[in-house]
Structures are given as C-alpha cells and as structure tokens.
C-alpha cells in the first residue's frame, strides 16, 4: 500500500526522448492506467518505476522514498509482463515461489502464500504443471499469482492482456478489477487499449510522444478531453472531427465546416465569441449523431444533410459512415433506423455534447 510519484521524470535513449518531464501523483490503492499508442513511452514510464531502466532526469518516489537508485528487488513492487515471462523450466508452484525463495521465506510461509494465491486465482490444480502445459489465460493467472504472493506495495502491469483472445480479455479485465478491490493495493497498469483503460481505471493518464496529455477519471476524460489527441484516443468508435472556422452572424456563433454550418447553443456563445474567425476543429462523438426520425426529444438538435456511405449493424445500434462534402464521419444511430447505403438523409447533431479545439494548439476551447 503506497503512493507513487513521478516528478519531472525524463528518460532518453541516446538522443531519443522516450519520456519527457512526466509528472504523475498516484494515490494509495489507486488503479492508475497509463494509456497511449504504441511507442508513446508508457511502458518505459512503467519500467522506470520498476527500476528496469535508469532515469535520465527527475525522480520517482514510492511513498516518501526516492527510488531512483534503488534496485528493482528492493522497491517492494511486483510486475506482470506482457509475455507473462514465466520461467519455462519451473513448475507453476516454483514460478510463484521464486521470489519468496530468493528472499529466504520459511517453507510454511511460501506454501501458505502460494496456495492462497492459487486459490484466489483458481489455479490450485495447475501447481505441478510447467508453463508450456498451460493455456494463455492460465499463464496470465500464474503471472498475476507470482506478483500477488510477494504482497508488494505496488503492482505493475505491462499490457498483461494483449496476448489473450478477445473473450478472455473481457473476462480477465473483470478478474483484475476484482483482485484490485480485494487486495486494496496500488495498481499501475499500462495498455494501448482505451477500452481496458476505461473499464478498469480509477484514473487514466493519457500519454503520447512521451508526454502526459491528461490525467483524470475515465468519465472526465471522455466528457471533457483537454486536447485533440485525448478526444480522438478515448472512446470507440472515435470522436468525429471536422476542420472548421468559428463565424459570428446576428449575435449567434456558428461552426462552419465549409459544407455545413451549425449554430452553437446560446448558453455557450460567450465561450466561443472571443475565438470567432479562428481555425478550429469541431468534434462530436458518434452517439451524439442521430437519425432525425429517432432523435431523443430533449436534445438541442441541429440538422445536417449527409449521404450514407457504409452501414454496420451491431444489433443494439447501427454504426453508419456518413459523407458530407469532404467530411466523413460515423454516427451510432437507433437500430430501427431505415437508412441504407446511398441515401441522402437529414441527420441530427446533438449540440448539447460537442467539442471545439484550437486548430493550431490542438487544445480544447471551453
């Protein structure tokens, strides 16, 4: 049980900056997810915390202790790796006992801890097996078990689910959340999958190009992304973006994409009035685009003409790719919608939920 602090942490590999001036304060018992595209520096950030890479500048603290120069084994952390990194020549039991044996734990204590962890993970029957005799999901559990028996202050996970098939991933996600609740320990979890981040995290740190973009709860990241990158990264399907210009006409502010212009609701006119004539990016999430026939009654509806390009039936909804002038965008519309490919339709943008970003700085205007 511990807090973790990244203070101005920078890591360079030669001239390449992998992590740039990272500042994160992870609270005790928090489930923090570092998310970003591959090569963004999130794994490096985690390896710095584990002590597997040396920090170029700045410092990392576990509780109040600066761990920059402390060996991985003395940091009181345990790590689950992407490839599981199970020792292939050792049985499941020995894999889990490995760290305890190195620390010269008593035999009884090792047995107790390994058996407790095995029971918790449902792998009691596998203790005598070698890793190669296990399925992906079982290996995953053993890797988690090897971390649990150590009873560390902080658990580190490096993309632990990316080698599993989709169905198992969903199941293991729920299991990890459950373990976090049960263990009451700090989890730091790295993934490139925003769904994993959204479903498990207490807070998410979005990273790209080695820099922290936004650190907040999943809901805030989704509702109020700070910049264009976070807006596009969080949410599936991604937010739609339209290059546009803010225009003012007769006291109303419009978002003008060149193909269509949408008035901004009066309640937010004041926010955007100072930015009139600026190049912006207008963003709206797919679920805020509706078939005009099935628009919920209370929304601030603005009509847009578009052509149906592709439809993807999902059962509970239909994902429709629309084309309007030079813009293509996705809407998640009601499954009863009768729109079919090639139709010229009137669709509705729900202007209660939209985002505007400065085209130059890519920061949100709000």
């Amino acid at each position: 049980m511990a807090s973790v602090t990244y203070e101005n942490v920078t890591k360079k590999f030669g001239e390449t900056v992998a992590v740039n001036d990272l500042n994160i304060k992870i609270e005790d018992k928090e489930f923090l997810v570092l998310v970003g595209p591959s090569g963004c520096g999130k794994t490096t950030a985690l390896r710095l915390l584990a002590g597997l890479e040396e920090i170029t500048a700045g410092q990392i603290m576990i509780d109040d202790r600066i761990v920059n120069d402390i060996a991985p084994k003395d940091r009181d952390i345990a790590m689950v790796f992407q490839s599981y990194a199970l020792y292939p020549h050792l049985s499941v039991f020995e894999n889990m006992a490995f760290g305890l044996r190195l620390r010269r734990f008593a035999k009884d204590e090792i047995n107790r801890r390994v058996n407790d962890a095995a029971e918790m993970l449902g792998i009691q029957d596998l203790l005598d097996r070698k890793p190669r005799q296990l399925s992906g999901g079982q290996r995953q559990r053993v890797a988690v078990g090897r971390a649990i028996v150590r009873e560390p202050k902080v658990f580190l996970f490096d993309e632990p689910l990316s080698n599993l098939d989709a169905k198992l991933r969903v199941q293991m996600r729920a299991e990890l959340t459950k373990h976090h609740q049960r263990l009451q320990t700090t989890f730091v979890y790295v993934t490139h999958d925003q769904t994993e981040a959204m479903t498990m995290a207490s807070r998410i740190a979005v990273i790209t190009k080695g820099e922290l973009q936004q650190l907040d709860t999943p809901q805030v990241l989704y509702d109020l992304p700070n910049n264009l990158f976070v807006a596009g990264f969080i949410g599936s399907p991604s937010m739609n973006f339209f290059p546009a210009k803010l225009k003012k006409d007769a006291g109303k502010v419009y978002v003008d994409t060149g193909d269509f212009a949408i008035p901004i609701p009066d309640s937010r006119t004041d926010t955007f009035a100072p930015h009139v004539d600026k190049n912006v990016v207008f963003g709206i999430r797919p679920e805020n685009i509706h078939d005009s026939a099935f628009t919920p009654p209370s929304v601030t509806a603005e009509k847009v003409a578009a052509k149906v390009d592709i439809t993807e039936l999902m059962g509970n909804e239909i994902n429709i790719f629309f084309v309007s002038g030079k813009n293509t965008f996705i809407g998640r519309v009601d499954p009863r919608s009768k729109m079919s490919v090639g139709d010229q339709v009137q669709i509705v943008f729900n202007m209660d939920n939209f985002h505007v970003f400065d085209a130059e700085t890519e920061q949100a205007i709000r």
Partner: protein
Amino acid sequence: MDKIDFTSSKSGSLPSSKPYQKSSRASYKRYLIFTLLVAPAFLLRLSTAAYPILQTIYLSFKNLSVLKGTDEFIGFGNYIKMTTDFGVRNAFLFTITFVVATTLLDLLIGMVIALLLNSNFRGRLFARTINLIPWAIPTIVAGYVFRWLLDDQFGIIPFWIGQISGIHPVIFINPLASQITVILVHAWKDAPFMAIILLAGMQGIPGELYDAARVDGANAVQRFWKLTIPLVMPLTITMGLFRLVWSLGSFDLVYGLTFGGPGVATSVLALQVFREGILFFKFGFASAISVMLLVIVAIVGVLGLYMFRKSEVSY
C-alpha cells in the same frame, strides 16, 4: 517401422494427411510412390553406411593381415587380443580421458566466452568474429602449427616459458605433458565454436525473463544459476553429446600434433585403427577396434538423446 502414423504428432495432427490404409487402392498407389521416392536415398545410405559397417563387423572376426598373408575366421580372437594389446588398452584409456576432458573444457571455456560475448561492450561484433578463428583453422593444420610452436628446439612457447621461469620445458618427451597438451590444444580449437552455439542459446532466452527475475529479487549471479544455466542446459547437453561423439572419432589433431607419442601415450582409438589398419595392414584387428569404437559411440549417443529429452524446455 511397420506403420506410418501421420495423425499422432506431438504438436497436433496434420489436417490433410489421412492415415495409410492398406485396403484403399489410392493409398496403395501413394505408398508405392512414397517407396519409390525414398528408395534412391535409402540405397545410397545402405551402400555408403550399412555396407561398410557390416563389412567391418565381418572383418573384425578374421585375422586378415596383408603383411602376414593370413585371412582366416578366428571368432572373437581379435576382441580377446584387444584386451591385452598394450597399444589398444592405452588408446582406450586415453580416448576416454581425452573425450571427457575436452568435452568438459569445451563446455566450460565455451560458456565463459559465451557469457563474455553476450555482455554489452564496444566491438562486440569484432570479438565474436575473431573468437571463431581457431575453429576455422583446419584441425590438421592446427596440429602441425602447435607442434612447431611447442617444439623444444624451435618452438616459441617453450622459449618464452624458459625466459620467464628459467626452466626450458621439453613437452613431447613427457607422456603426461603431451596428453595435457593434446587436450588443451583441442579445447583451444573447439571451445570458440561451443561458445557461439551457447551464445545463440543465451540470446534465445527472452529478455523479459531476466526482467521478471530482477523484480523477483535475483541478483546477477542468481540470474545466471537459476535462469541462464537451466535454460541453456538442453543445448549444452546436446552440444556436449555431439562433442563427445566427435571427439571419440577424433584423429587429425593427434595425428598432426604428436602422432600418438611419446610411444602410444597420446594415441586415441581412431589413430590406433589407422596405425593397425593403414600402417601395419592388419585389417582384421583394425576392424575389431573400429567396432568397439562404434559401440561406444552408439552408447554415448543413445544416452545423450535420452538426457536431452528429459531436459527439454520450451517457451
């Protein structure tokens, strides 16, 4: 082999191959083609391996000697004679010593070199390349070169030892010194190759395993003993086995370096076969020694395979 089973392979069955059935005509035709295609290779192998082996076994029961002009069937006579023959007994004992010592030395030195070459330093590629030079030199050449280098009159090594210690060693008149020399030169020549193989094995170990061990609390020495060693063990055993088998038949180094001398102190079984057969034309007796060598190789081979299967790892 009376039945070919395509279905029960360890890694899963081949989806398209059906098991061979005698009843079906199509399968019979397939079997025929299969036989015809394999036949040339089979016949070639039969004529180049099976025939000489059988012929050797046959000869080992005769007292065929070109010089004496004898060629009679004498049963186990040659084998009984081997037990008392000074040259053969000596060669047998030295072969065992030589084979065991060189294999262990090769593995030990190879492991050390592999560990060095596996660490990160400038000019690693260059070091890996020059490491292989001794292995690339033909053994017979290495044998002759070392004979000169170690020669008591012209050799540079005894000269240096003399300069440093004041004692000028004469290696090739001392049986024990000669034996040690043969073993060391052999290790000099073959350890680098062992090192490259072990290095490949070490590089096949996923880096995340070492990361995991570091987080688990293993220091460098523990990581070596608890990860590297067990994980390269199957390869080490396989290579050790090959090394044993190769060394058992080794002939050229001893031929070039000492020609078995002084006396028969450094003679190995393969050299003894050469001496008795090619030099003294005692083909019957030489064949008997060959058969003994064959049996030893076979035993070592089977033992090695068994050990290899037991220690297999997969990631």
